[in-house]
């Protein structure tokens, strides 16, 4: 039971309350981290119809694994790991499906929805970012999503992706090369 305003409660109290069956506490967790998850999922899948489903799966998986959360890492890192894993699984799944049943390329795997953005200039900028990200190799896409959309440092990116720092640095460099090539075509 939380004896203070839910929005002011820290993650630890909200997790304990959620484990005790307090759905309002879990609702606060979802609302606290939904934008973070949206940036990862939509950054990697595009603003597609699948992004919302994966986003929901992230929080459902979180709910079912709360009892395993030991508090050694921050809750945001834990959620981010779930989001990255589920999104990469979705990319693999769609890639397998389309390689078996369709001639569509990887960039056409998702049906894009028109983002709800207020100005033409922002819409164009969002389109460039979205198109460039979707054209990238998934292993580079995840790196650029963590850096450019989430603002994580190289060390934080390595921790979330469970990769050695050297691997992340090498992928950053290769991602930059690939991005240069892609952006020239846009």
């Amino acid at each position, binding site marked *: 039971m939380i004896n203070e305003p839910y929005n002011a409660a820290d993650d630890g109290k909200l997790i304990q309350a959620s484990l005790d069956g307090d*759905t309002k506490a*879990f*609702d606060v967790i*979802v*609302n606290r981290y*939904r*934008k973070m*998850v*949206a*940036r990862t999922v*939509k*950054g990697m899948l595009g603003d597609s119809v699948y*992004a*919302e489903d994966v*986003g*929901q*799966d992230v*929080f*459902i*998986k979180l*709910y*079912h694994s709360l009892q395993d959360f030991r508090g050694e890492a921050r809750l945001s890192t834990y959620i981010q790991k779930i989001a990255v894993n589920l999104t990469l*699984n979705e990319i693999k*799944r769609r890639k*397998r*499906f389309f390689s*078996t*049943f369709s001639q569509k390329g990887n960039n056409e795997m998702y049906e894009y929805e028109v*983002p709800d*953005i*207020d100005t033409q*200039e*922002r819409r*164009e*900028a*969002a389109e*460039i*970012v979205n198109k*460039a990200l979707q054209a990238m190799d998934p292993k580079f896409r995840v*790196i*650029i999503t963590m*850096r*450019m*959309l*989430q*603002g*994580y*440092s*190289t060390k934080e990116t390595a921790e979330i992706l469970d990769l050695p720092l050297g691997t992340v*640095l090498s992928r*950053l*460099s290769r*991602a*930059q090369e690939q*991005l*240069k090539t892609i*952006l020239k075509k*846009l």
Partner: protein
Amino acid sequence: MNASEIKRIMLRSLDNDADPSEVAEIVERETGSVDFKAGFSDRVLAKLAKPGMAVVREVDFIRSMNIVFYRIAITGVAAIVLLLISIFLMEGSLSFNSFLGLSGTNDDSIVYLLTGN
């Protein structure tokens, strides 16, 4: 912000010496905030409340099984078609005896094979 400027910022975000949090702020300001549609948390909680969603891990397994099934099914159907064609070419028909490899034999030769007389 024009197109070339956003491209420059994207490339800058991957520089090792860049401040990623600063870049992320600029990108969010210039491209708009990314979020799910309104009512997202309600939909998550509604899914959690569904008895079927308690076994959400099984959904992943079932999805994977669907893909595996289609792959096996396509290969299996191709193998069956090839088998039928080869039986038809060798036996000249697709009768039940052809499947068992009994066409073109007579009772006497079967008795001989079984008894040696």
